[in-house]
């Protein structure tokens, strides 16, 4: 099984450890990974801020780049949601018929990480060991745009040593929302405060998710407040096979 990893621009820049974990995890499961060296960004930030033409140029670039890939794995729900929900509209409005056909051919081969593991590889037990108390934050895009359902929880349930702490108000947004976090910084922070209270109330060591954007938001507030909890992308939990250094 071959798959191409689209790491996404912010994971590449800010969270390379997530990418390394995806590599460890998928190679352990026998996947032959490719990495397109010219990959950059899916255009989500541009599309969601109203820069439609700019988003289109990035979408076109990405559709062309992955035309030959057997499968594309993306460890970010919001970027997958961008491709599934917005690319078609952009291509129909600004693109040509050929690009639309290329998109239609590509989309069925695009997977968010938990989809790839469960739907494509057919595994729930990835052989991970992570002896910690963990709570799972369902990112809005994973929850509502991708309808990931219980996939992430099924994966976590099979991790040895992991104690899953249920999160109250699971379906409530953390307030990140891309440029919303700065354009409406105060409102975003108020939402974050409410979310963080629920997250911290779980008494977990880690808060995990399938989107580093939410985790950057939650983790930034945890660090600011000296909270006794850290954030970790689920790929890193699933890749882990040895006990981590204490909160290392």
């Amino acid at each position, binding site marked *: 099984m071959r798959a191409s990893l689209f790491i996404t621009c912010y994971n590449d820049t800010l969270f390379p450890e997530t990418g390394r974990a995806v590599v460890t995890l998928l*190679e352990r499961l026998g996947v032959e990974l490719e990495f397109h060296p010219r990959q950059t960004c899916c255009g989500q*930030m541009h599309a969601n801020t*109203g820069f439609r033409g*700019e988003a289109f140029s990035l979408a076109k670039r990405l559709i062309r780049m992955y035309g030959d890939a057997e499968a594309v794995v993306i460890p970010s729900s919001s970027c997958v949601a961008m491709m599934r929900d917005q690319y078609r509209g952009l291509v129909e409005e600004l693109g040509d018929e050929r690009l639309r056909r290329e998109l239609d051919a590509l989309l069925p081969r695009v997977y968010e990480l938990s989809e790839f593991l469960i739907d494509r590889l057919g595994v729930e037990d990835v052989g991970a060991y992570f002896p910690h108390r963990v709570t799972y934050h369902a990112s*809005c895009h994973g929850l509502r745009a991708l309808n990931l359902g219980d996939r992430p929880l099924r994966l976590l349930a099979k991790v040895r040593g992991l104690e899953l702490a249920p999160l109250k108000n699971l379906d409530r947004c953390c307030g990140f929302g891309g*440029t919303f976090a700065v354009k409406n910084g105060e409102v975003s922070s108020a*939402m974050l405060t409410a979310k963080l209270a629920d997250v911290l109330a779980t008494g977990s060591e880690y808060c995990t998710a399938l989107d580093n954007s939410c985790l950057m938001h939650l983790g930034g507030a945890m660090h600011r407040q000296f909270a006794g909890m850290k954030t970790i992308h689920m790929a890193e939990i699933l890749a882990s096979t040895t006990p981590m250094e204490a909160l290392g």
Partner: protein
Amino acid sequence: MSAAGEQLGGRAILDPALAPPFPVAALAVLRDPQLRKNVAHAIDVIQGKRARLVAEKPDWQALRAAASWIKDEALRNLGLYLEEFEARCTAAGGVVHWAADAAEARRIILDLLREEKASEVIKIKTMTSAEIQLNPFLEAAGIGVYETDLAEIILQLGEGEPSHIVVPALHVNRSQVREIFARRMGIRDLPDDPQALTAAARQYLRGKFLRVPTAISGANFLIAETGSVAVVESEGNGRMCLTLPRTLITLAGIEKVLPRFQDLEVMLQVLARSATGERMNPYTSLWSGVTAGDGPERFHVVLLDNGRTGILARERERQTLRCIRCAACMNACPVYRQTGGHAYGSVYPGPIGAILTPQLEQLRHSQSLPYASSLCGACFEVCPVKINIPEVLIDLRAQVTDRQRRRAGRFFDPLYLGLRAANLIFARAWLFHGAQWMGRMGLRLFTRKDGWIHALPGVGGKWTETRDLRGLPQQTFHEWWAARKTGTEGTREQGNKRAEAK
């Protein structure tokens, strides 16, 4: 100034032309713990009831699909159905007036009231009248206006503004209601238990109902097939308002029309469950024209466009007009939960307001509203007529940006410049990698010994006001991948072998 008004640091401004931008208007509420508590508590109660009642309908998704289909069909043939409504309503003894904009609607209503020689008018269930700012207009013309919906009475007497479309006084708590009633109705020693407050309101209202012979109402639905109007409510004050007066004027947006009487079967089911978490609302008033010896002798309908045909003309935005004003979107919205309704600067708050108001204003005002959302999609999930609010928000953002592109001021907007630059950078991998390197070097200046950034200048400061940011790692993922490919090819082989062995 009322207690509720004081809480907001002055009376809220719900005129899109005058209201401050959303982030600014939100500040007053964010700094008011009591108000935020009132809002969160109230919507938790409604949301809980709604969730239970939606869960008991196994065909809920089918009902949503049907409701959205009915509204779409009505909107596709809007002209046809409005003319049918006009013909049937006229045949039943009603008079239909057409108003292209707010000013025309106000003038039509004032002329009708003058014909009636009315010096007072009672009102029920008409958010549209707030949209056209009817009350101040009529009062300036010397006509006394009395709201009769309990929440609207609280707001009118307390000189407050609605913050929710189903529960307009959601932000006012019981002790504040007591204070307003005691002061404005002149009742000393009024207790703050619900029974006493309701009794005071009833006493106040009965006088109006029995004295004032002219009423203005809104409409939940207009039925083309029968020329009927439907109003749903919980209190029965609407029923009084719709049946006691000699003359009734109904103001309705043109999108309120439904093709067939039977469509109510679907719409009433989804509306009550979505709006108040009830299987059926307590009072549903339905009437067609006038009936001798029963109810008003004269009946007028004012059909209001006021920007709606402009929305209808745009394919992606048209779904906005499906809205049946149930407020499920604002109850589900994590932004509304924090800010309440006044921050939206319009009579239509919440996610639906964030798409409806800018469109009604043709984006001359309310340009900050499409950005007042984290695009979490909770509104779309609960909407009984399946309005894809995030999709419309994104589309409106594109329209705002397209306007910005034509203005010179854009060169002073760091977000605009940043996004334009980012687009150029993302178009070429070598530029992207160069920018990553520069970012790492630049941010190193702000990174503390613990490896985290605690304060940034400019736009970044909006982030670090409340959140830290981890400093950029020394190696990007693609650099790691490249190094691994050239140096440590063995790692992957080993990984594969291990998987095979398993």
